[in-house]
């Protein structure tokens, strides 16, 4: 048992983070770990120790003792509070034997994790930031799409999205109107469903799972759940990391680093419907962590 000393563990009391399953990265990282030689991971301002227990299940200790931990979709998920308020999201495609799962690795990004998720939902930046792959000037128009909140799961669903993409994936060799569908399952977890190259009607899945280090630093983990069976893992990872590597400087230059949920700091357009819904959805949950708190206006 670990010694309990700090009066206040973790950098937030926001139940949206404390009572939530949060990822600390790929379960593969625990290979070779033990209670004597644990892996460390940072979450909500604290260092966690993780290892594989004698029963083969993951074990996690935080600054004040054991924490709930489980494995899901090949990643480790930790709850830093007493009870997770909601179950972990479901990703049925991840157990489809016709698909392969490719962990693209975590990449650190110096901004609020909420901004990373919001950027993931945004199609408007494709032709500017991802020119030559996910978009191409002058094809800048974001056609109307629908956004709703599923009354049962409380997930955000954006459907009917389409965008001209010169090279929509690592295996694409011609431009196409890519069909997209988004899910936001948790404040820091979203998934993108997009046309699978060479498989009419089928959709590949890209899941984004953000590990919040603190309010202004995160690690973005990306999982591919693909039908693709030609390219190597290295080729798929290379394509995906190039995309995120282009997003990273944009994200790190956004000010404020924390996401404003309302107010005059940022202006939205119709193409931002998914982002607007995401911010309202966060506000409805009383999200505080990683959120920009406006200072009171001068009298």
């Amino acid at each position, binding site marked *: 048992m670990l010694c309990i000393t700090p009066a206040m563990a973790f950098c937030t009391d926001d139940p949206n983070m404390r009572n939530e399953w949060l990822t600390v990265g*790929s379960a*593969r990282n625990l290979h070779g770990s033990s209670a004597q030689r644990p892996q460390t991971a940072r979450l909500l301002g604290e260092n966690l120790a993780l290892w594989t227990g004698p029963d083969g299940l993951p074990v996690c200790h935080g600054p004040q003792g054991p924490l709930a931990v489980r494995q899901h979709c090949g990643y480790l998920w930790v709850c830093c509070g007493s009870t997770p308020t909601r179950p972990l999201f479901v990703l049925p495609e991840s157990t489809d034997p016709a698909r392969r799962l490719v*962990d*693209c*690795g*975590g*990449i*650190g*990004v*110096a901004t609020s994790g909420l901004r990373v998720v919001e950027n993931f939902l945004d199609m408007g930046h494709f032709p*500017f*930031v991802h*020119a030559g792959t996910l978009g191409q000037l002058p094809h800048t128009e974001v056609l109307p799409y629908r956004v709703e909140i599923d009354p049962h799961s409380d997930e955000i669903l954006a459907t009917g999205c389409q965008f001209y993409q010169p090279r929509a994936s690592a295996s694409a060799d011609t431009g196409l109107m890519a069909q997209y569908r988004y899910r936001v399952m948790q404040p820091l977890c979203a998934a993108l469903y997009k046309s699978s190259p060479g498989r009419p009607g089928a959709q590949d899945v890209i899941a984004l799972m953000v590990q919040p280090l603190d309010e202004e630093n995160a*690690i973005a983990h990306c999982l591919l759940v693909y039908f693709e069976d030609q390219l*190597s*893992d*290295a*080729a798929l*990872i*290379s394509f995906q*990391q*190039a*995309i*995120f*590597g*282009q997003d*990273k*400087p944009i994200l*790190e230059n956004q000010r404020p680093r924390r996401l404003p949920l309302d107010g005059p700091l940022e202006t939205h357009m119709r193409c931002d419907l998914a982002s607007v819904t995401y911010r309202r959805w966060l506000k409805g949950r009383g999200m505080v962590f990683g959120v920009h708190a406006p200072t009171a206006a001068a009298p």
Partner: protein
Amino acid sequence: MISLYDYELSGNCYKVRLLLHWLGLEYTRIPVDFHPGREHQSPAFLDTVNPLGQLPVLQDGDFRLRDAQAILVYLASQYDTDQYWYPSDARVRGNITLWLTVAEQLNHTAAAARLQRSFGYAGDSAACQQGANAVLRQLDDQLAEQHFQGRHWLAAEHPTIADIACFPYSALAGEAGLDLIGFPALRQWIDAMRHQPGFITMPGILAVRFAKMLT
């Protein structure tokens, strides 16, 4: 036939891609799963590609070469018939070699800090950043000195492999948590590099066209 063992987000791989592109050389890219797979440390890679477990590695016919700076020297010597990128003048070559070693110092400082912040590597990030600032200061001083003499490049009247070697981790300083506000000559030089005809970028270094739209 040239092949490059390559990692998209590596500044050292990028500098080789940049020179290959400027020399108009066709090559095959062999993507290596540096992160998260650590393929460059796998037994297969160590046994058959590079026992030091580093990227990039160049294969040109039966000739194999590791180390980005060495690869720049080789490619320019072998394929740049105009001797633009690696002039034969003794003084210029002396200076180029000096800045190639400075590029290696950036690997141990700025590139290391970036690995820690972006890829979760262990290490003393603050010490690496402090070291990086000292190296960037050398570059800024040299470029300011050159500027007063009407020149804009590290070792010659025009860009050479010295500039290519030092460029990536200078331009990626933000990802290492460094601020270039105190290095005005360096910032001007980064901008000049990005405006060179035929310049190609890498993730993390903004394309000129896009940067113009932001301002």
